[in-house]
């Protein structure tokens, strides 16, 4: 089944999210739509799926104009979608989730799941999905939950499957599995629209690539194009994907972590006897699949974790036992994993977010009286230094894009005297341009002789920035390897496989 979009336009207020977009997806092809965050990819797909009404333009399925006003119209036309955030009820089983909205009842109105079970098994066996219809959703890994979403689309006869940033939530292994599944589906005649900003995945599976920038189609490319070419098309200028690592001199040990064990509230060890050290002028990356204890290690560096044993020595003095504030002021810059949840206060002004840590110290305050004019002038200064694109430093920080939000966090954390920079997933969800900036900034800190502790689940990021790489698996450090390691070796280590 083919899908064609003609002249789709949609604006939200002054923002033109989609500007006369033309696109054709042929039968049985994987068509990647590549674009930065905010380029209009999701809006376009929400229009196709009937979640958003376009201002103009038409949708054709097999060369026939379809009026898609609701998701049910899309489903009836054979279009299925797997959202970035899954639409599953966690406390229901796989089968229950799949029949949701199409329940069949048997004798005396009792829910009949048998038919659904059989169809799930059939699809699951056909594509080696390994999904059991009676498992509870909340007990399943993210990758399997995603397969449940795909099964749902297939069971309701989707011939065109839209996958919205499907790999954003997956581990490297799960990503590989998904890419395999996509190829199988394609061979089975399903067309796939693959929305992403990850170049490697596009090159691995796509048949054709359409690149969208600021709501417009700016070009198409074949998967033979180099990553640099694709990135340049996506961003609209030359991009350095792998930042130049300058010369640096490795100095003394700045951070020494010994026997670090972190437990949850019921006493289970999330992190078990972890040891490492970071020297001045080097980047130690802690790689690992999400959920192997890295978040806890990162948070414990500034005492945000509660049940911690062992020792964390920063420049000769113990960090454990200090307050968060004392740890920060001892010379740790901390970029938390989630900008929105832990890094910034969305409803407060950008200027205020820039001084969350120093708000009660001179020159921002005299006694308990704050000096708003100093806060503002300082914000203007840091806006220029960190190239934060904003309308006014008085605007709430939630009005900024992801990349600019991260710049606010960096600007704040690097404004104190810093010995150690702890950055946790610093580029998660950022567009290529912002990733470039953040990477440069991290390397600048390294080159200036600071110790950098980087936590990342992105192989490319780890390989691009690290001088040494520690791989965490199930709460322990499996190995510490030099930066020359290949992506494949690193991937295996992250999956818990140690070479002899």
């Amino acid at each position: 089944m083919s899908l064609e979009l003609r002249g789709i336009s949609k604006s939200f207020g002054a923002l033109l999210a989609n500007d006369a977009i033309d696109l054709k997806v042929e039968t049985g092809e994987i068509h990647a739509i590549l674009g930065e965050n905010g380029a209009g990819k999701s809006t376009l797909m929400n229009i196709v799926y009937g979640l958003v009404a376009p201002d103009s333009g038409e949708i054709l399925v097999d060369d026939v104009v379809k009026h898609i006003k609701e998701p049910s119209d899309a489903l009836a036309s054979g279009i299925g979608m797997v959202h970035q955030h899954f639409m599953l009820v966690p406390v229901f089983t796989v089968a229950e989730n799949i029949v949701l909205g199409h329940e069949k009842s048997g004798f005396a109105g009792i829910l009949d799941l048998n038919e659904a079970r059989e169809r799930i098994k059939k699809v699951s066996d056909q594509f080696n999905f390994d999904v059991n219809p009676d498992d509870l959703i909340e007990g399943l890994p993210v990758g399997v939950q995603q397969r449940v979403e795909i099964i749902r689309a297939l069971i309701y006869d989707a011939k065109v499957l839209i996958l919205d940033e499907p790999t954003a939530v997956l581990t490297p292994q799960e990503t590989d599995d998904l890419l395999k599944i996509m190829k199988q589906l394609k061979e089975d005649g399903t067309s796939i629209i693959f929305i992403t900003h990850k170049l490697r995945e596009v090159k691995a599976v796509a048949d054709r690539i359409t690149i969208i920038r600021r709501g417009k189609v700016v070009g198409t490319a074949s998967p033979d194009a180099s990553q640099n070419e694709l990135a340049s098309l996506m961003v609209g200028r030359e991009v350095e994907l792998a930042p130049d690592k300058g010369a640096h001199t490795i100095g003394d040990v700045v951070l020494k972590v010994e026997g670090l064990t972190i437990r949850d509230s019921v006493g289970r060890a999330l992190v078990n006897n972890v040891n490492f050290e970071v020297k001045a002028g080097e980047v130690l990356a802690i790689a690992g699949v999400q959920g192997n204890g890295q978040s806890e290690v990162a948070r414990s560096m500034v005492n945000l974790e509660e049940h911690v044993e062992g020792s964390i020595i920063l420049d000769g003095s113990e960090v454990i036992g200090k307050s968060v504030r004392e740890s920060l002021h001892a010379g740790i810059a901390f970029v938390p994993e989630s900008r929105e949840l832990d890094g910034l206060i969305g409803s407060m002004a950008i200027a205020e977010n820039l001084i969350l840590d120093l708000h009660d110290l001179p020159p921002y305050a005299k006694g308990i009286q704050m000096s708003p004019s100093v806060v503002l002038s300082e914000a203007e200064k840091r806006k220029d230094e960190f190239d934060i694109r904003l309308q006014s430093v008085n605007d709430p920080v939630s009005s900024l894009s992801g990349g600019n939000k991260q710049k606010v966090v960096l600007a704040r954390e690097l404004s104190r005297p810093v010995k150690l920079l702890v950055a946790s997933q610093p580029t998660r969800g950022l567009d290529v341009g912002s990733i470039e900036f953040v990477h440069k900034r991290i390397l600048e800190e390294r080159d200036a002789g600071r110790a950098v502790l980087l936590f990342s689940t992105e192989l490319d990021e780890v390989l691009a920035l690290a001088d040494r790489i520690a791989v965490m698996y199930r709460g322990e450090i499996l190995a510490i390897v030099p930066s020359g390691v290949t992506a494949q070796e690193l991937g295996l280590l992250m999956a818990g496989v140690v070479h002899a």
Partner: protein
Amino acid sequence: MRKLTKKRPSLRALTLPGLSFVLAMFFGALLIAFSDSTVLKHIGHPITFIKSAGVAIWQSYLALFEGSVYNPSLAKPHDALLSWYPLSETLVTAAPLILAGLSVALAFRAGLFNIGAQGQFIFGSIAASYVGFAFHMPIGIHVVFAVLAAIIAGAIWGGLVGLLKARTGSHEVIVTIMLNYVALYFLMWLLGTTRFLRPGRRDPISPDVLPSARMPHLAGDNYRVNLGIFVALAAAAFVWWLLSRSTWGFRFRAVGANAAAAKTAGISVPFVMTTVMAISGGLAGLGGAVHVLGSDFSLTSGTAGNFGFDAITVALLGRAKPMGVVFASLLFGALRAGGGTMQANTNTPIDIVLVIQALVVLFIAAPAVVKWVFRLKNLKTTGDLTAKGWNG
């Protein structure tokens, strides 16, 4: 840091509360018409019905105004100013309400839902009246001590809630509701003890506070309006400064808007919870003092009336901003003061006032209704009410 947050025309901030009030008055008018037996007699004759309904509504709302602001028939030949007597009553009711409302609003801004203004108010009035009747001190000093005692009592009662939340994670809504009961029954028990029971009385009422401990009248002894209203306005100015110009307020707002990010940036969340609840309790306690030292003079089991609960309403109506709370409290004070006159002069029961109050809040809580009725497109509906739900 008001300057730092985006300047928007203050008129726009008043749109929703203002229109909600208009809408509430409209429904109040319908209720007045349909609850009046003489109006209902004409229900079969549309023209007379509308006429008599108009008369009933006009008279009721006129009485409401005359009871709360200005009533020419009260003027006496030797004192024409007496026609302003109702305004004095409005201010007397508004003063404690402003303080209790500020208490709720301040906690709101730090993300805490202080249902306990009632209990803190009660503790404030107990402390103020005890210092007021049991000790002899010079004029001026006495009232200051009584007020300080009330602030401290309220601060302890409120701070306890913050401490419990910070230390044990108990939800402030549950704790404050329970502490309201504790405060009320503690007051009733106190009024049965010899120390608090007024000599010669068997019904629970305390002795009057000594004249030296009373809030001085502002406009002579014919009017009950007293220093309390200025205390309340000064407190509003203080809360404004605290929230927008002080480091403490910065922390309160940071914790209120995103406690996790505040913690990550090194702000001590338990400390903020405890201090904000203590200051909040102190404000409600001060409200109790203004009530007892300004107009009631003695404690009864009904001393706190409904102040602590109306406080939640005015904080909501005032969008948790100090000036908003002042205006909302003046409005509620006027409705309360005028309601009695309306009931006495017309067929309209005082309960209509409660209905209007409730409707105002209802419409503010459901801005979509107001938007729809007045065909507004760009009404700003997100305020600074950052108190979280049960998971907060």
